[in-house]
């Protein structure tokens, strides 16, 4: 038994622990409850209080508990004796004045509904065997966790219900709250680094690759030396159900392309509305009509984390585009996730798209490995890296454009694309025939190709003077040739004509 327990289990139980850990479950406590309890004394008349030892839990019965005045006097005398706490039957004193006096004297007052004598027996047992009392709590938590099954929300519900005075939260790897209490999340800090007047405990939930899927964080203000260690044990009991939860979610998503695709779309929509909210409300928390309800948003994000998808931090969009229409989406998802890891795969434009936490360079390498495994000829594009999910749309658009430009079997990066790449992506072969038709009047009179060359030079350089320099001829020569081109029926003053001619020249001369 001793092997599984961290140090602290033998430390005397504190008053808070008595109330939190079930010995006095259901009792109302007023005051900090930080004192250790080393023994119990049943007090039936006030005069007995003079002989109470320090750190004793004083249980009032009989005349000592008979009225408000008696309980107040007992509290005062217990305080003078440095008792750990005063336990009184709830009928004895109006709770509001008890609360005031507990606060004023700094002594903890506990109201119980049960027979105080039974309470005294239980407190005595917990005080004499603190490790047994703590083990009892751990056992109860284990039972409740087993009942909760593989639901992250229910597991967190159990932890927060069974560890009163303690806030437990489940955070994703970026520290964002997935389930549980926000105040625990706020207190999340590296273990051992104590908050002022508080403590914290953590347990990591692994993902399928052995990384960190999320972290259970617990915190509270109890000063009991044994409590954090008990909480840590209980948290570690919750790791297995949470791992099972994540695995089950992943399994479901793998089997069902549509489900994970819809989740990805909802995630993007939610990120976009959150961004819009922040922009419109200047950071104040006013929900717009279009906003995804917070509860639902949390559920979406939680499902995404369970699947191991990146939901925060720098992201890069990708698109895989089959050359000849979309194929089997489920097969594509399997092959893409095999190469890229756990990423969403949705249908976008003429291909499959998603995002990854990898940077554009690494993502390009992975996609280059992925393309040959696809049963159809595909090209792929990688978008620019963006700071978070709210800007993922921008990166996806870039990836789509890059994929459109990339040649079959190649991967293009949007962040490395310029005009040359756009021109390079033009389907020159397909355009050659229409270009020949457009330029036919010119080609008919242009025996040696000088006129086409001159036209291209004038359009490229934006004027006769520079064209003459490029061609190494006199300016008047260029002017004369331009007159012949115009005579063939081309109006170079019309911008549309100019653009069409320049494109035609580019195709013909390439």
């Amino acid at each position, binding site marked *: 038994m001793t092997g599984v327990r961290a140090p602290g289990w033998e430390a005397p139980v504190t008053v808070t622990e008595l109330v939190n850990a079930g010995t006095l479950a259901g009792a109302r406590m007023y005051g900090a409850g930080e004192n250790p309890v080393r023994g119990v004394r049943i007090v039936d008349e006030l005069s007995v209080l003079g002989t109470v030892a320090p750190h004793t839990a004083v249980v009032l019965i009989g005349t000592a508990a008979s009225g408000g005045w008696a309980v107040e006097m007992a509290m*005062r005398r217990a305080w003078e004796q440095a008792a750990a706490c005063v336990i009184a039957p709830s009928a004895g004193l109006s709770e509001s004045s008890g609360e*005031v006096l507990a606060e004023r004297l700094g002594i903890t007052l506990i109201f119980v509904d049960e027979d105080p004598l039974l309470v005294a027996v239980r407190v005595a047992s917990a005080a004499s065997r603190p490790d047994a009392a703590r083990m009892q709590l751990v056992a109860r938590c284990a039972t409740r966790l087993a009942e909760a099954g593989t639901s992250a929300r229910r597991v967190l519900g159990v932890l927060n219900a069974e560890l009163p005075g303690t806030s437990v939260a489940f955070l994703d790897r970026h520290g964002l709250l997935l389930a549980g209490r926000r105040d625990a999340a706020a207190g999340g800090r590296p273990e051992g680094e104590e908050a002022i007047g508080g403590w914290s405990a953590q347990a990591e939930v692994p993902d399928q690759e052995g990384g960190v899927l999320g972290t259970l964080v617990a915190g509270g203000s109890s000063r009991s030396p044994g409590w954090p260690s008990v909480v840590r044990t209980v948290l570690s009991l919750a790791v297995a159900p949470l791992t099972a939860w994540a695995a089950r979610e992943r399994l479901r998503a793998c089997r069902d392309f549509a489900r994970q695709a819809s989740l990805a779309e909802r995630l993007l929509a939610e990120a976009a509305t959150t961004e819009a909210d922040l922009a419109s409300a200047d950071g104040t928390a006013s929900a717009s009509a279009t906003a995804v309800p917070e509860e639902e948003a949390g559920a979406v994000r939680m499902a995404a984390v369970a699947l191991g998808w990146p939901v925060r931090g720098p992201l890069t969009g990708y698109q895989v585009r089959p050359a000849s229409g979309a194929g089997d989406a489920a097969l594509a998802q399997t092959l893409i996730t095999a190469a890229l890891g756990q990423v969403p795969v949705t249908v976008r434009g003429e291909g499959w798209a998603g995002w990854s936490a990898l940077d554009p360079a690494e993502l390009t390498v992975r996609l280059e490995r992925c393309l040959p495994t696809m049963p159809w000829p595909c090209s792929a594009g990688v978008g620019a890296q963006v700071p978070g999910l709210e800007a993922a749309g921008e990166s996806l658009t870039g990836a789509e454009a890059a994929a459109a430009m990339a040649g079959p079997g190649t991967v293009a990066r949007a962040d490395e694309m310029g005009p040359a790449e756009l021109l390079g992506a033009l389907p020159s072969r397909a355009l050659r025939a229409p270009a020949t038709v457009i330029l036919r009047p010119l080609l008919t009179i242009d025996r040696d190709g000088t006129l086409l060359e001159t036209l291209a030079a004038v359009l490229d350089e934006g004027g006769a003077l520079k064209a003459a320099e490029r061609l190494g001829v006199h300016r008047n020569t260029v002017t004369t040739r331009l007159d012949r081109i115009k005579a063939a029926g081309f109006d170079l003053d019309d911008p549309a004509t100019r653009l069409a001619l320049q494109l035609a020249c580019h195709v013909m001369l390439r």
Partner: protein
Amino acid sequence: MSRLIDLDELGRFSAGARVFATGAGDSPYHLALDWARSVAGKGVELVTAGELKPETLCVAVSLAGSTTALGEHLPRGDEPERAVRALERRLGERAGAVVALNLAAENALVPLIAAAMLRLPLVDGDGSGRVFPLVEQTTYALGGMSPAPLALAGGSGELILLETEAGRVEELLRPVVLAVGGWAVVACYPMAAADLARVLVPGTVSLLIRAGTPGAPRSAAAPFGVRRLCRGLILSVEGSTGHDAEVSLPSQPSSIVLREPDGMRRLVRLEAHNEIVLALADGAVVATVPDQICMICTGDGMVVDVDEARPGLEVDIMVVKAAPVWHTERGLALGGPRAFGIAL
């Protein structure tokens, strides 16, 4: 050196008798004052016990029961005289002086009315130095005097003579008072002037006349000292438990919880059983009977009765020190916390 309480002094006397008196409703108080004025004539002679011949029969006269009932069921006017005469008949001896049982509001005026009607002197002093709820809680009893035989005159002409051992007077008296309409005038503690001089708290009548003089400080009405415990805002008035069930008092125990509005901001609890028996501040005992603990409304300066206490009222809590004889072992047994059912 006897002196005369004339109408002018009567006014001051009655005002002084109200300074720390609880249970003094306006209507019964004015009734008693009007009654006293109508019979006072040229005035009532005030003597010290020592000025009387030692064997002079002195009789304590007081109102018993509820003063509220007195305001509703008016007296015929002859009650004090009938009560004293009945006692004289039983003893076969004429009374030579009248003395008060205590000097709280109406209880101060009734012996004066009796003295005026019987044309007897009023002794300067009383059997309490403050007020206690029971006829037996007096310095007379502490000094070994018996309240019985006791004569009681009711407002509808009833006349009852009680003769029993000292400890049973209260028990017999209470149902009788209820039966005659809730109040009665009693004549009791018949004793010789020499005994009276030994057991009374002297000089309290003249003290209250001085205290009732306009401009006199409140402390003038407290011969043995008075201290202000604290100021408090009443948070709640609760029924109370935990009082010894063996102690039988005319009213039910209650508890008044207050908070000091500033300063130490202590939580104050006044435990009342007929009167305020115990004052706790943050659970520590700060005052108990036999000292008299009273609440004075900060708004109008009047004494706030336990029954009148209500949340939101701001009061000064004053402790009027009881006569030294109440702080002796016997005094505490008769008028200390235990006598009110609080085992400290």
